[in-house]
């Protein structure tokens, strides 16, 4: 369940950015996604064999990825094959890129602020020697 949605309900955006975000924010899930992408298609059994996750964990990850529209399932005999939906993956990449950009900008702002704090504090420390013991 995605918490804190601004509008009550919020269902009108079909598999929205929330689900997309939730799906790709988890590193384990990105591993599952990467592997399906590398193989073209994969069954839960082969995924569980190649990744350090249990079958149950793989099934859970696949369910979240499917809910976000990032993968689709196709049944062939007794096997279910999962493949990546490219257009949805593009959207996910954009969401991630935007978030990374916002974070990088925030980090740069704090860097500038810390440097400004440093200058102010050091100025004050040097103009009031009583604050500094010895030396």
């Amino acid at each position, binding site marked *: 369940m995605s918490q804190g949605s601004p509008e009550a309900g919020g269902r009108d955006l079909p598999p929205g950015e929330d689900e997309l975000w939730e799906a790709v924010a988890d*590193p384990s899930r990105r591993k599952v996604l990467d592997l399906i992408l590398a193989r073209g298609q994969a069954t839960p059994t082969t995924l569980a064999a190649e990744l350090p996750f249990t079958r149950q964990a793989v099934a859970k990850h696949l369910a979240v990825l499917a809910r976000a529209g990032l993968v689709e399932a196709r049944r062939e005999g007794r096997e279910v094959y999962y493949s990546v939906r490219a257009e949805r993956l593009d959207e996910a990449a954009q969401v991630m890129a935007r978030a990374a950009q916002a974070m990088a900008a925030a980090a740069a702002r704090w860097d500038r*602020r810390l440097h400004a704090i440093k200058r102010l504090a050091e100025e004050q420390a040097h103009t009031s020697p009583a604050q500094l013991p010895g030396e």
Partner: protein
Amino acid sequence: MTPDKVEKNILINAPAETVYRVITDPDQISQWFADAAELDPVPGGQGRLTFEDRATTQRMSVRLTVHAAEPPHRFAFRWDYPEGERPAEGNSLLVEFTLAAEGTGTRLRVTESGFAALRKPDEDKAVYYEAHDKGWDAHLASLQGYVAGQS
């Protein structure tokens, strides 16, 4: 890694008490953070930061609420929550400063977290960040001029 948190730190050649004052005193906050600041730096204290965009002379004001104030070791606040709402996880960013003695100076660390939940109205945020950046670039330029004039 979930991109929800930024972390930065700096070594300052000044006692923790001095650094703590710089980060909590409204008169000083207006020199490193916003163009104007009002703040009661006690737990639960309310404040307001005003940013001016020098290019357009447009003003933007942001509320903040003090989350923790333990001089001279820790100071934290939540900001960037909608007017009329209480600051909480999911509608605001949490900024946490920690100060630790290191050598003859102070190591100041800052984390800002809550981006993942806050990213909801993406376009609003983009505009907001841009406004901040502009204000900051102008502020930094004036600060650098000031520092250069000193030396």
